[in-house]
């Protein structure tokens, strides 16, 4: 008899989704759907609000990546008002954005993803979580908690508030960095860089080798990729041009201001969230896992696939090792976990680079702005992918129109495909157990955040 299995809610991810797996009479997978369950409507309700207030509103889109929404929004508002921010403010914004990446990846690995690998995908759900990991490995857990807290407190010290920040202001940054803070952060970030390197080494030697078979099989699909690179093709998180790569490795670069000429968003009947796709490929939109159309992925694996290289030494060495093993572009979905830890090393290295010169402590951090009619696209790489805030303002500097493409949404289509692939791989003749259902969810968790 045909039936439907509901994996609800999808857990240990940031966000609200559920999976429906429809089985046919023989108990094989007929179809799968990943439902994104609600809609908040920021595009609508920021209309009419003073543009300079919006970076403090849209940060609430996501509690894990508020800095990225905040800063993409700040960039868009600066452009609307035609204001150029001082060099130290530019550096401080990039610094907090980079540190936020660094923090997030430790959170993801130790708190959300590790339980599947450390406790095992088939472990009882009551221990397959951070609490179980902490009991099984108390020293490492205590260290991970302490390290993550240290990096989070850097954000708190710089901007006054680490979750839902207000540090970015139209025309610049809320306050200057003090020299003693720069010295303190350099010391802390050096220790954190070593911990990031340790984490990657730990994962490469003690975690990933046990799951190489799963990596090659679970949730594997073949797609294009989207990410940001600098003028020289290096990995970039804060500023650069967008690079859209096809599955065969060929790519097109374009300015963030022109995103709407390249990307489209499909509406599907089973999800509030829209599914972005590469409209510029001219092949339409299809989630068929054997013949996808218009589908690309974002987030860390995409970023290290589209980048020619990484401009910091430790991360570049890791990228070379990764590429030698998995090629470019690497397609296996669980490799997101590996890519994430490479990016983590880069984020700490780059944060330290930004603190190298004392000019980041220049007291001039804000250019006065005047409200005016204008348009601005602000873009950064959020942990989950390319984040685009596009605003228009009226003569009073109130928002008259907004379009947002949020990092998470780029991967909504690919997540559907990975779930479909994993379910078909694992469920045969009606045989289902908790371990199988958790493995299907693992193909979602790889993308998050």
């Amino acid at each position: 008899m045909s039936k439907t299995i509901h994996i609800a809610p999808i857990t240990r991810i940031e966000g609200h989704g559920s999976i429906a797996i429809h089985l046919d009479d023989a108990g094989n997978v007929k179809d799968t759907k990943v439902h994104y369950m609600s809609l908040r409507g920021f595009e609508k309700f920021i209309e009419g609000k003073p543009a300079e207030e919006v970076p403090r509103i849209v940060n609430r889109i996501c509690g894990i990546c508020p800095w990225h929404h905040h800063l993409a929004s700040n960039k868009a508002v600066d452009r609307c008002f035609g204001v150029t921010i001082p060099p130290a403010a530019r550096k401080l914004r990039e610094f907090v954005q980079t540190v936020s990446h660094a923090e997030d990846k430790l959170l993801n690995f130790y708190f959300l993803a590790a339980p599947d690998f450390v406790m095992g995908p088939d472990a009882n759900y009551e221990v397959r979580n951070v609490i179980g990991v902490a009991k099984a490995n108390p020293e490492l857990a205590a260290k991970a908690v302490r390290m993550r807290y240290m990096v989070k407190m850097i954000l708190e010290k710089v901007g006054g508030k680490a979750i839902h920040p207000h540090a970015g202001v139209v025309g610049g940054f809320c306050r200057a960095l003090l020299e003693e803070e720069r010295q303190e952060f350099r010391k802390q970030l050096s220790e954190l860089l070593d911990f990031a390197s340790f984490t990657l080494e730990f994962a490469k030697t003690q975690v990933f080798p046990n799951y190489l078979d799963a990596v090659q099989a679970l949730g594997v699909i073949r797609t294009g990729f989207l990410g940001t690179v600098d003028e020289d093709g290096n990995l970039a998180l804060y500023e650069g041009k967008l690079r859209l790569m096809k599955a065969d490795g060929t790519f097109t670069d374009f300015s963030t201001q022109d995103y709407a000429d390249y990307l489209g968003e499909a509406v599907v009947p089973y999800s509030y969230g829209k599914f972005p796709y590469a409209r510029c490929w001219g092949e339409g939109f299809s989630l068929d896992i054997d013949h996808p159309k218009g589908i690309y992925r974002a987030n860390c694996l995409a970023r290290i696939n589209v980048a020619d290289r990484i401009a910091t030494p430790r991360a570049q060495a890791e990228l070379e090792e990764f590429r030698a093993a998995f090629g470019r572009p690497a397609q296996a979905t669980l490799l997101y976990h590996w890519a994430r830890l490479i990016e983590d090393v880069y984020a700490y290295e780059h944060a330290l680079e930004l603190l190298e010169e004392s000019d980041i402590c220049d007291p001039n951090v804000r250019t006065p702005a005047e409200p005016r009619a204008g348009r601005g696209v602000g873009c950064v790489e959020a942990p989950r992918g390319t984040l685009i805030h596009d605003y228009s303002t009226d003569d009073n500097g109130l928002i008259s129109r907004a379009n947002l493409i949020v990092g998470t949404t780029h991967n909504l289509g690919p997540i559907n495909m990975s779930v479909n692939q994993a379910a078909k791989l694992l469920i045969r003749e009606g045989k289902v157990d908790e371990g199988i259902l958790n493995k299907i969810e693992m193909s979602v968790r790889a993308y998050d955040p």
Partner: protein
Amino acid sequence: MGVKVAEEWLNACSGCEISVVDLGERLLKVLELVDFVHIPVLMDHKYFGQLGDGKHIEIPEAEVGIISGSIRNEEHLEIAHEMRKKCKIIVGFGTCATHGGIPALANSYTNEEIFQRYYSTETTDRVENLPSEGIPPLLDSVYALDEKIKVDVYLPGCPPHPDQVFNALAALLGIMPLSLADKSVCDQCPTIREGKGQVKQLRRFLQSPQYNGPDEPLDKMRCLLEQGFLCMGAVTKAGCGGDKITPRCITARVPCRGCYGPVQQDGNQLLAMLNALASNGIDIKSLPEYASLLRFSGAHGMLRPERKRKEA
């Protein structure tokens, strides 16, 4: 065995949950004392049974139920009722749960207006029918928790400061009494207030406030409202600074926007702020618009669509 706790996030962003993680090493202590039975952000307990074949949402029984987020769709409503049924104490965790939070800015619009914009942006493909398959219908508005279920403890904040999270958890675990003062952000703000009457017009926050250099202590800086910037501190519940007290916006020399909601649970931040401005002789017409003053507390019918406002 620890105290059984269930946690849910409804129309929420996860910021409240991350604030719990930001307890740092205190988190490990909490995890020793608390026995989580359901918490989707950290743990794989499922609504419809671990094999996904149940018919109704089921959450295990717990002493304490913590809920972040507002109630926006039919599933949120079902989960909120199930939590109320299974938990002895319900904590409204964060300003979305207590007052609607930022997502309740949507209450200025009808669902049709929101769908109309979201599904017709310049990058969106046109479709005949809106999504509806396997997803819960939206309610007509964003509701604070206590509009739908009884709430025993209110813990506002966007997000609540980790120190307050810790103190509240300690209270719920019976370790210490729960005390949340009915003070305003101004009561805990160190900046200098000189008195009424000098500012007549408000300025938008388009330039830096006046202070003497980045290392000048906050208690040498003039109150931001007295410098002519809108600051919601007078009408906003205190607490955002945690054990260090000093409000977090002010430490960054940025004006308060009200993220802890009104000082009294049933207060109205818009009316209170307009009153405060008027009684200080400030022209309220110098504000560029008003809905933003309810950006954290638009539930409880505070914000409504244009049409409904006219009918009311």
